[in-house]
């Protein structure tokens, strides 16, 4: 097996094993990209300081307590990537789609994940 083959198999295995692992989705805006819930100064300014996240969430049917927690763990001192992953996982498939669509309506680009 050549090194190239080995590299391809390693990447394929990593994708297979990690593909459905703990993650949210990648948000892109003006060339800046980060996983939803991960610390990113630019996206934090847009989502939290400018108020995009509250606006996006209000356009979904996600239950109010979950909306509040998504804001709280993204935008306040209680910020927690794990809580965001857990909250995102808690959303039903329909709510996950709604959230992504609401982001796209606000000119965010979503890197749809396979799971």
């Amino acid at each position, binding site marked *: 097996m050549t090194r190239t083959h080995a590299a391809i198999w390693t990447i394929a295995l990593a994708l297979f094993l990690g593909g459905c692992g703990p993650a949210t989705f990648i948000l892109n805006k003006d060339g800046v990209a980060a996983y939803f819930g991960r610390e990113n100064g630019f996206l934090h300014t847009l989502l939290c300081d400018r108020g995009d996240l509250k606006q996006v969430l209000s356009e979904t049917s996600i*239950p109010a307590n979950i909306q509040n*927690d998504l804001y709280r763990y993204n935008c306040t001192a209680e910020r927690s990537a794990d809580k965001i992953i857990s909250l995102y996982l808690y959303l039903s498939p329909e709510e996950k789609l709604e959230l992504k669509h609401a982001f796209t309506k606000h000119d965010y680009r979503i890197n749809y994940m396979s799971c």
Partner: protein
Amino acid sequence: MKQYTNVHGHKKMVALVLAISLCLACNSSVYAAAATQYEKAADFELADSTGALHKLSDYRGKVVLLNFWATWCKECVEEIPSLNSAIEKYKDQGLVVLGISIDREWKPIEKLLKTTPMQYPVLLDHTGAVFVGSYTIVRLPSSILINRDGFIIRKIPGSQDFDSRVIQNMITDLLKEK
């Protein structure tokens, strides 16, 4: 000569007993240290489909397997037969399985139960208080194994075969603890 051999053999025996004692002492101190590192399982109270409340702390003295799942999660549903098998096999020895669903309502669960019976209580975490708040689960399905004293012994993320030797060994080891 024979006496010398006996004395020599006796010394060997004493050394062996001392070595075994030392090993046991080392092991017990390791277990004791590990036990203090285990995280206490957060208590919760959730209802089953009949409205009956299940409080985790009410199961103290049992080995509890929390299984977080949802009807829309294919891998979660695939685990159910092996969870049924585990509870059938070990319930008399003190195993309790609690299936904690993150569905929003009972309707999809009741529909699933018609084709896929579950031999253990199914509880609904319709606010996410347990899933997100208490346990911050980051993978679905996920299971948590809790010992008789209420400590989390193992977090088991992802789909599992609860009939597998590895998981059965984990369960039986905990069931042996009194």
